[in-house]
């Protein structure tokens, strides 16, 4: 059993290397990495699903069939829970953007749940791009509502002494830029950590069953039986990851909605 554990720790570095966004075309600065290819695949799947949904809903307002109902439920969820719940009156204006963010992240996450596939949102480059889009959007909403100077001024609290207001303004500007980083890093870390844990359990599963396949003794059979346990753990983690994928897409869109709400609100 000690040998099996040693084998796992030895191959851990290899597992970590497999998460590195290796470039297929060009290099990692300009070029296509593995994650971008999967992201493009995810986007293609998303467009197919939405166009199929549109075709099914042609000339009717009531969704028919399982597929149309599932997509419709997701749409209703985004519209009611996310947009109307957080934004209030102006929700129709922001629904297109928030819906796009939600579905892009959702499909990017779920494509990684197919065995041996990588998540489209599994590198900081891609999550950073999506986070940058929402950053530009909520800054844009604030600038449109209050004007460029008005938005910059609105970050400082009103009715406060000048030196303290300046200090708070500096902190607010800092935290506004920090939102960009936290949005990107949160999604990346969740995907990376989840897939790493699944990878470790898969490694343990194979490392424990290997000695039994090479030489069939009673001791090796006991070690091999352990791998059933690891397999069970792998399946449990997989089920948890299926939920995490959805929750992370929800959190990403929800935080964008909250930031839009903050940029729009008059008080602060």
């Amino acid at each position, binding site marked *: 059993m000690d040998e099996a554990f040693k084998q796992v720790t030895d191959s851990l570095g290899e597992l970590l290397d497999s998460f590195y966004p290796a470039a297929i075309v060009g290099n990692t600065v300009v070029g296509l990495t593995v994650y971008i290819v999967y992201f493009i695949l995810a986007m293609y799947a998303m467009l197919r699903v939405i166009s199929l949904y549109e075709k099914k809903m042609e000339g009717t307002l009531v969704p028919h069939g399982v597929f149309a109902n599932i997509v419709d439920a997701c749409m209703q969820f985004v519209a009611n829970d996310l947009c109307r719940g957080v934004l209030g009156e102006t929700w129709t204006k922001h629904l297109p953007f928030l819906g796009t963010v939600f579905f892009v992240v959702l499909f990017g996450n779920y494509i990684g749940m197919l065995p041996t596939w990588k998540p489209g949102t599994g590198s900081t480059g891609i999550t950073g791009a999506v986070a940058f889009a929402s950053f530009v959007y909520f800054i844009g909403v604030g600038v449109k509502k209050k004007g460029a100077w008005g938005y910059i001024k609105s970050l400082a609290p009103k009715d406060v002494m000048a030196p303290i207001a300046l200090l708070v303004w500096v902190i607010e500007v800092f935290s506004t830029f920090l939102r960009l980083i*936290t949005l990107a*890093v949160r999604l990346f*870390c969740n995907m990376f950590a989840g897939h*790493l844990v699944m990878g470790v359990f898969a490694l343990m599963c194979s490392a424990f069953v290997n000695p039994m396949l090479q030489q069939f003794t009673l001791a090796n059979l006991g070690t091999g039986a352990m791998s059933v346990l690891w397999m069970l753990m792998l399946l449990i983690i997989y089920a948890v990851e299926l939920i995490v994928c959805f*929750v992370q897409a*929800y*959190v990403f869109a929800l*935080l964008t909605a909250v930031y839009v709400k903050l940029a729009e609100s008059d008080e602060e």
Partner: protein
Amino acid sequence: MTTIFGYGICVLGAALGISIAAYGATTSMARQPEVKGNLFTVFILASAFIEALCLIGFVVAIMSM
């Protein structure tokens, strides 16, 4: 070895944070079931903020190993 201890402390903090949030959310829901929807959103939001710190710790620990 020290990185693993560091990560353990990091998880401890995150666990305490999320448990306090869950405690608050469940007690408030029990007292006032009509605010369930709003509370759930706030709870998920708070958990996401706390969890992000824990995950940053995880990635730092992996990178320094």
